[in-house]
């Protein structure tokens, strides 16, 4: 019961903070709302009985990625953007119609079949040992490629942000 309550509260909070993130003028406020959005996503992950992943999500996303965002926003010292004054009514209609149609397509495609459980408390706890074994066994190539990707991203971001090439 408590799990369902947390689930509903966290999902409503996630939707509200996502809406507030994409509509703020000032990027600093948008960053703070995105941080609360990511925390509510972590709460949603923990209601699925994936507690370790929710902790990792808070550590990596909120602790590392969003602090990097906040650092860059404060470093650049931006002015408030003029919020879409010159957009015509047709463009505004298009900008709201396109995501709604994508949402309808996704909801239409994702019909959960052969699910015979309806409550969150009926979910099984997935063994973390099997998951990490698969990471180093079945998906070892993907793991190695990701480590190469991180090195390349470090080199690339230094090269792009450097003053003179």
């Amino acid at each position: 019961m408590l799990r369902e309550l947390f689930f509903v509260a966290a999902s409503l909070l996630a939707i509200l903070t996502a809406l507030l993130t994409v509509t703020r003028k000032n990027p600093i406020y948008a960053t703070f709302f995105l941080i609360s959005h990511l925390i509510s996503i972590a709460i949603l992950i923990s209601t699925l009985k994936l507690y370790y992943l929710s902790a990792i999500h808070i550590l990596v996303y909120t602790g590392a990625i969003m602090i990097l965002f906040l650092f860059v926003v404060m470093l650049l010292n931006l002015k408030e953007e003029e919020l879409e004054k010159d957009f015509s009514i047709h463009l505004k209609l298009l900008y709201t119609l396109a995501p709604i149609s994508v949402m309808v397509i996704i909801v239409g495609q994702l019909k959960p079949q052969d699910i015979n459980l309806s409550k969150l408390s009926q979910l099984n706890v997935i063994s973390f040992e099997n998951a990490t074994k698969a990471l180093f066994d079945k998906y070892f190539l993907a793991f190695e490629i990701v480590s190469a990707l991180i090195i390349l991203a470090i080199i690339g971001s230094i090269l792009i942000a450097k003053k003179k090439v």
Partner: protein
Amino acid sequence: MINTVYLITAVLFSIGLYGAISRKNFLIILMSLEIMFNASLLLLLTASSIYNNPDGISFFFIIIAVAACEVALGLSIAIAIFRKERHLDISKIKQMTN
């Protein structure tokens, strides 16, 4: 209750899509991409725990590393654009380098 996760991820994905196509600030577009990324991540973890399959958890680590790379590159591109143009309005940017 579990079926509503599908609806929530679809709503979050479309909110992120709305932000990505309607805003002009480069940083807010990057944040909208993060919202879309997190919606698909939540969908992956939900499907993984519904079908009792540990592969979703394995992919969680790979996906989170790719997201970190994406953010690092995007923010350095933002710094490069700001150094040249002194703003981040993508409708006024013509080129990134000389």
